[in-house]
């Protein structure tokens, strides 16, 4: 097992407009990217569980090969900056995804 944060070059989060939160996992090279997506370790149910959301609030999980990246987009629990907000820019919501451990071959990068 390896955490996504250990496998990826970086994992980040940011608003995509005031109503969505988008998480980017960017891998160091094509081989790592392909090894990751081939295992399909992220589905809506997994992401929903990591963030305590309903599956319907996981809007999309998109593979973007030009950047060797996987993008996860969540519906925000409320619009950015609404009363009760904790992170207006959505810039610090990536850690549960980065700390999520997935099956990964021993000895691989």
């Amino acid at each position, binding site marked *: 097992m390896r955490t996504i944060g250990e496998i990826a070059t970086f994992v980040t989060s940011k608003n995509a*407009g005031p*109503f969505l939160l988008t998480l980017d996992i960017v891998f160091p090279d094509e081989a790592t990217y392909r090894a990751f997506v081939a295992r399909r370790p992220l589905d809506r149910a997994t992401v929903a569980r990591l963030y*305590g959301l309903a599956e319907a609030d996981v809007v999309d999980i998109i593979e973007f090969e030009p950047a060797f990246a996987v993008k996860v987009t969540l*519906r925000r629990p409320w619009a950015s900056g609404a009363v009760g907000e904790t*992170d207006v820019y959505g810039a610090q919501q990536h850690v549960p995804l980065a700390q999520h451990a997935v099956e990964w071959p021993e000895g691989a990068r």
Partner: protein
Amino acid sequence: MKPMTVLAPLGMLGYGIPPRSMERGLARDPAVLALDAGSTDPGPYYLGAGVPFVNRRAAKRDLTMILDAARARRIPVLIGSAGGGGGRPHLEWTIDLYREICRERGHRFRTATIDAEVDRAWLRAQVAAGRVRPLDHDRPLTAADVDDATRIVAQMGVEPFLAALDAGAEVIIAGRACDAAVIAALPIRAGYDPGLALHMGKILECGGAAAYPRHGSDGLLGVIEDDAFTVEPPNPDKVCTVASVAAHSLYERANPYELHLPHGHIDLKATRFEAAGDRAVRVSGTRFVPSATPTLKLEGVRRVGFRTLAIAGVREPRLIANLDAYLANVRSRVAETYPDGYRLLFHVYGRDGVMGRLEPGAAPPPHEIGLVIEVIADDAETSAAVLALARSVALHVTYPGRQAIAGNLAFPFSPSDLRAGEAYEFTIHHLVAVDDPGALFRVEMLEA
């Protein structure tokens, strides 16, 4: 066609243009200086209150450099989402700054302004006609939302910029605009492929953000040709790599394969990113797909009240262990005096202050916590009164096992209570179908 060079001097007016990058960028003989000056990222306050989120002095420095360069080289300047929110007061703030600089530097330009605020009566009619739909959420727009909104803007595409250029504008100061459109407008007018021009615009709109190392505000050069464009940082210490440019397609967007504008979208499914030398990246294959039904993106906010807050720390382990009971006690004590008419919130840093409802939790109790006590009420005096009571109750109220009776909180500041002004929330984030994507935006030539 002969290649056209566009310089985005920086990603946000007021974040600071590095002079050396500007110099080197200008040495490449750009046909236009184009930049984005706005965002919804800083939250709903700035659109509602009608104020910029950048510092005026910093914006003046950047705009002075841009206007000096534009005058010296006789090239146009396009500014989108002026003043941050891109509403009327933001536009006026930018025009005021612009006039001040022109006066001080003796510059004269043919200048166009483009208003992006939305007429409420028109929007109510669109709601009634069923031409409005939610974007990224499920809440349909109502006439009441339109009436309650403090300010509503629509994002313009390239059309109003083309109209302003046709009218002879050398400087265009526009309200809320699609960032890519600001930068793509001149290349599109010159006849370059709109898919490539808009994709280039999307990469340049954040300035040097698509180059590595990604620190500090900086500019970016784009050179568009018939079948491709190339991006390159003017800063010699930075490089664009396939990874840095491709990764930028992910930034702040839900779908990296598509970017929507009023008159269609760009499709990146066949896009190729290739290294062009050591510091530049060549991009080709991006297609523009026109839309049969143009749509404008609407953004609007509503004032929800006035915010007062206090910041304090807790070090006492018994209090940290009994925190929930303690906060519930504060809440009920406050309610004895002020039963309703406000919202009282506790932000608990060290526990879930950063992630709130999304926090998976299950961390051991921290040795200290930061507590932000927040009150929202309809008027500023009620907000301040409730916060003052909540702060004093929180300081002195008891909790199970309490021994440190002198006070529960460590306040870093005197005064402890901070008036944070008006609080807003986004209530409008919708698409409206239109026949003419340019019709809503008023282009006016500015009197000198």
